């Protein structure tokens, strides 16, 4: 069944519907938008793409399919663990945003994509036709290689907290319940994973909490990578100067299994006992990417043309964010925000019959807190290479902070306020 305006009216009530229809544009007044774009997923990439597409192509109808009522930011969610932020302060509801920009917001789960007929099918059976489809799939967590974490019960105990939300708050509670002297273990998957510096920021902020509230407690980091993946020098200095004796970092220590009942972590080299076990599992492109048939890199990620973020596998489907292979750009919210805008411009250009911009650029500015008071950053500009097949670093444009500082913490909080307003304001 295709949702037409009449059914929308029944489903949503006249005012709610009127508020979500881009019905005042001249095209809509004539009876139909010039084109229809469906965006699946209103995270960093999808929300940015939808917002900018409405700005740059006001005659195009934009429908966003999203399973949540509100956006919750992963960036800065580690501060919930240290008491530096509340989850509420990381949450932006979608309602006002959709109304303001004339976005049709559909709360639901996409279950099928017919790329030939250009139709999205929702869990309830409804269909949404599109001229161009934008997927912002994010990542799914993969527990296949961790036998002890197959059951939902085990995963309610051993948390990931790698998607901000209830798990973030639950991990904070586990840390609060840990006795002074108890051990917290964090396991890090082999790269690539969402937010390269995230595990090391988490290490710092759990240590900050222990330093203040549980000074005899320890943080043990079991890293599947040969070394700290991002901002290494800055993190090591912070750990040494701020948290002496608290953090025990062990590289090349890939997770093999978790003995949940015995509270033990088993790696390739050792078995470590802990009061709180926090496993960040390996990741792959979110399920909708698989449904769309666009997963074509290492059977995990999505390859795109970086001029338009159109899938190299399926025409008419654009994919942005952590699900894509965009190296050397990291899997970060900032990069997804940037890709959302390049995609919005490209989709607007394609629908209007214009030539694609040949040299789009994206930036990354990624702050990590090393305590509630101080932060560090890595920043870079990326440009397209090989006609859009890959990205490359713009020469000389990449670097990290000279040193951690309170000023950077202030800029980090301003970054969050600004980028959330940019994509959801």
């Amino acid at each position: 069944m295709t949702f037409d305006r009449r059914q929308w009216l029944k489903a949503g009530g006249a005012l709610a519907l009127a508020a979500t229809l881009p019905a005042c544009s001249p095209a809509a007044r004539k009876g139909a938008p010039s084109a229809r774009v469906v965006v699946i997923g209103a995270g960093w990439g999808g929300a940015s793409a939808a917002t900018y597409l409405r700005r740059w192509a006001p005659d195009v109808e934009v429908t966003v399919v999203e399973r949540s009522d509100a956006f919750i930011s992963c960036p800065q969610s580690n501060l919930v663990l240290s008491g530096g932020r509340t989850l509420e302060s990381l949450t932006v509801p979608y309602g006002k945003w959709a109304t303001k920009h004339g976005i049709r917001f559909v709360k639901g789960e996409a279950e099928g994509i017919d790329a030939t007929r250009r139709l999205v099918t929702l869990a309830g059976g409804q269909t949404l036709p599109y001229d161009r489809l934008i997927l912002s799939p994010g990542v799914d967590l993969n527990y296949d290689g961790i036998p002890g974490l197959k059951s939902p019960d085990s995963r309610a105990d051993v948390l990931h907290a790698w998607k901000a939300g209830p798990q973030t708050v639950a991990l904070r509670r586990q840390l609060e319940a840990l006795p002074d002297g108890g051990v917290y273990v964090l396991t890090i998957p082999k790269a690539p994973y969402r937010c390269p510096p995230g595990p090391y920021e988490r290490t710092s902020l759990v240590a900050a909490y222990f330093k203040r509230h549980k000074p005899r407690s320890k943080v043990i980091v079991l890293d599947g990578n040969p070394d700290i993946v991002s901002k290494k020098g800055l993190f090591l200095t912070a750990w040494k100067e701020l948290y002496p004796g608290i953090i025990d970092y062990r590289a090349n220590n890939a997770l093999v299994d978790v003995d949940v009942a015995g509270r033990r972590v088993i790696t390739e080299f050792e078995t470590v006992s802990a009061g709180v076990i926090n496993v960040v599992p390996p990741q792959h492109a979110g399920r909708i990417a698989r449904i769309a048939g666009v997963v074509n890199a290492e059977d995990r990620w999505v390859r795109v043309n970086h001029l338009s973020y159109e899938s190299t596998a399926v025409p008419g489907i654009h994919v942005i964010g952590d699900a894509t292979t965009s190296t050397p750009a990291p899997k970060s919210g900032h990069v997804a925000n940037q890709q959302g805008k390049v995609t919005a411009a490209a989709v607007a250009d394609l629908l209007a019959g214009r030539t694609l911009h040949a040299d789009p650029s994206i930036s990354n500015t990624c702050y990590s807190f090393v305590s509630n008071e101080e932060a560090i950053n890595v920043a870079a500009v990326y440009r397209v290479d090989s006609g859009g097949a890959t990205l490359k670093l713009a020469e000389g444009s990449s670097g990290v902070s000279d040193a951690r500082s309170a000023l950077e913490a202030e800029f980090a909080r301003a970054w969050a306020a600004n980028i959330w307003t940019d994509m959801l304001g």
Partner: protein
Amino acid sequence: MKTMHGLLCALCCAAGTSAALAAAPEPITLGARLAASCAACHGFEGRSVQRTPVLAGVDRRAFLDALHGFRDGSREATVMHHLARGYSEAELAALADYYAALPAPAAPAQGK
């Protein structure tokens, strides 16, 4: 259905919910494309809501002087000394024109 849609339009416009009144879609300028990247930290159309400098309404020459200063290291920065090196002279000029053409917000620009 046509009547229904007309009614919805009336409802929608009466409620003042849509500002999308543009005619045929206009091409997206180079300045607008580049500024969309800067918007992540500096706000849409350079209207930063917290701490990061407001760019809307910044004088063209002042903008270019700042970016050149970041690029050659004569102007201190926490991120801009890196990012400024990622753009061509033509791109910086397009950004300078874009921001200079925008009205400065009523509140004074924050930040350094």
